[in-house]
């Protein structure tokens, strides 16, 4: 079995994101970037499946500018076999990413594609479902448990009501929740070895995909600020304020 994993480079989740004064976006200069957190879970799950002897090759793919290669290198350092970087500059929407990934799937013919459930920059939560639609494959979204069984996967999904279990035929798309597993760290020797693993670069244009934005970003602004609150000195004061001042209890 062959597994493809999609990894995106985003502003690190610990960074306090700041909006640019001219309203064109958020500040990215000199800001720490990392792999989108649930994409690390996607990589980890693929590596675990391979370690269990159920897969023989893992390929990681990223779509973005040259620096996005860092995310693929990181995946190579924890057990992914080879990488693909599809080069695109500027903002790229999930629809375009999903079409590019479809081309990669056509070429690589994986049995499974693991992705994150949501990118923490655009918060779109779309790409995996879109890829599944293009390919007419089943989709197992928001996965917190995955079990490989012969020609199918049993997946536990986190939904608003609780948990849901489905079985999907292979080939399938899985989008991962952070609770799926505990991503491992790369050891120094493995980081060194990863530098020698193959990383192919492809231009999005050569795949024949139009990556032009369909959604115009008219303005990006700071959300309204909450007015400063107060500290209360006792539980009694808190309850009194909630009752008489805020009138919420």
């Amino acid at each position, binding site marked *: 079995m062959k597994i493809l994993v999609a990894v995106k480079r985003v502003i690190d989740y610990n960074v*306090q*994101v700041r*909006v640019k004064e001219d309203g064109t976006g*958020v500040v990215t200069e000199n800001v720490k970037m990392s792999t989108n957190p*649930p994409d690390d879970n996607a990589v980890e799950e693929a590596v675990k499946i391979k370690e269990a002897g159920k897969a023989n090759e893992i390929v990681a793919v990223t779509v973005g500018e040259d620096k996005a290669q860092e995310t693929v290198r990181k995946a190579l350092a924890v057990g992914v076999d080879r990488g693909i970087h599809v080069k695109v500059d500027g903002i790229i929407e*999930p*629809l375009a990413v999903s079409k590019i990934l479809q081309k990669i799937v056509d070429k690589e013919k994986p049995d499974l594609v693991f992705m994150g459930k*949501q990118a*923490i920059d655009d*918060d*779109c*939560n*779309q*790409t995996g*479902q*879109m890829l*599944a*639609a293009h390919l007419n*494959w*089943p*989709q197992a*979204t*928001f996965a*917190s448990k995955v079990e490989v069984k012969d020609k199918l996967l*049993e997946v536990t999904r986190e*939904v*608003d*009501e*609780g*948990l*849901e*279990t*489905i*079985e*999907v*035929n292979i080939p*399938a798309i899985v989008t991962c929740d*952070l*609770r799926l597993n505990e991503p491992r760290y790369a050891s120094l020797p493995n980081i060194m070895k990863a530098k020698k693993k193959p990383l192919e670069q492809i231009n999005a244009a050569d795949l024949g995909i139009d990556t032009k*934005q*369909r*959604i*115009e*970003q*008219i303005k*990006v*602004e700071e*959300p309204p600020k*909450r007015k400063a*609150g*107060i*500290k*209360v000195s006792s*539980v009694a004061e*808190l*309850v009194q304020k*909630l*009752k008489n001042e805020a009138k*919420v*209890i």
Partner: protein
Amino acid sequence: MSVLLIAEHNNKEIRPFTLNAITAASQIDQDLHVLVIGKEINAVSKSISEVPNVKKVIQVDNAIYENFLAENYTPVIIKLSENYSHIVCSANTFGKNLMPRVAALLDTSQVSDIIKVISQDTFLRPIYAGNAFATVKSNDKKKCITIRPTSFDPAPTTGGSAEIVNSESSEATTLTKFIKREEVKSDRPELGTARIVISGGRGMQSGENFKLITAIADKLNAAIGASRAAVDAGYITNDHQVGQTGKVVVPDLYIAVGISGAIQHLAGMKESKIIVAINKDGEAPIFSVADYGLEADLFEALPQFLEELNKLNTIQK
């Protein structure tokens, strides 16, 4: 053209957020049709037909839709999409799972999780866990949109009498099989729509200690929430998680107990009307969004809180 809203329901009743989505959808266009896909859903269709903003209810009733699989829903929606300019549904796990599959097949770049309708093609949506708001204009001919339900009021449920028409089902998928749903049943108000929410974090130290929270929730008729850390640690189930990758809540009163206030948590509760934080670390970021902050050990503060509440006899249900 008209708007098609995909209803979320459990085959018996509409899920409450469908009403909030109806409000948003009718702000996009008055000619709002609601599509109900499910198994034996007459009662659901009937109740939606009574929502005044709804002009028409389209019902697709077949046992294959019992479990709301996106693979089964999508072809039905695609077939009907021709007559509509906008296809919308709630941005909860139901809509998040379904809508992108529809959008891809319509070659539309979806606008996710809108919090305001500015015009028929322009919307406001949070990005970066709500640290920025983006005004976006969709240039696709057909628009696929998911709606953050807590940003819109629920539509009134009586007074309307829309016609209900039946539409054809599509072939059932062979790709995906539903196995089971482990639904956490409780008599408490739903987290998403509760007037008061009390949430516990890693500071609770154990699932057992959540009984301190439960006692207060009982007293205030509140829903119970949690941080991701509390869910990860197994103190409480995932359906309680509030935040960027959990649920968004906008209650009148949100009480955060033993929660530090990471931006991913704030993303799910920052819009609450009144926020209370109980934390023993005076520097915890949660205090920066709290209207009332109490710097205290929760194991002392929560029992006192319950005691004070017991003294009041005017708790509104």
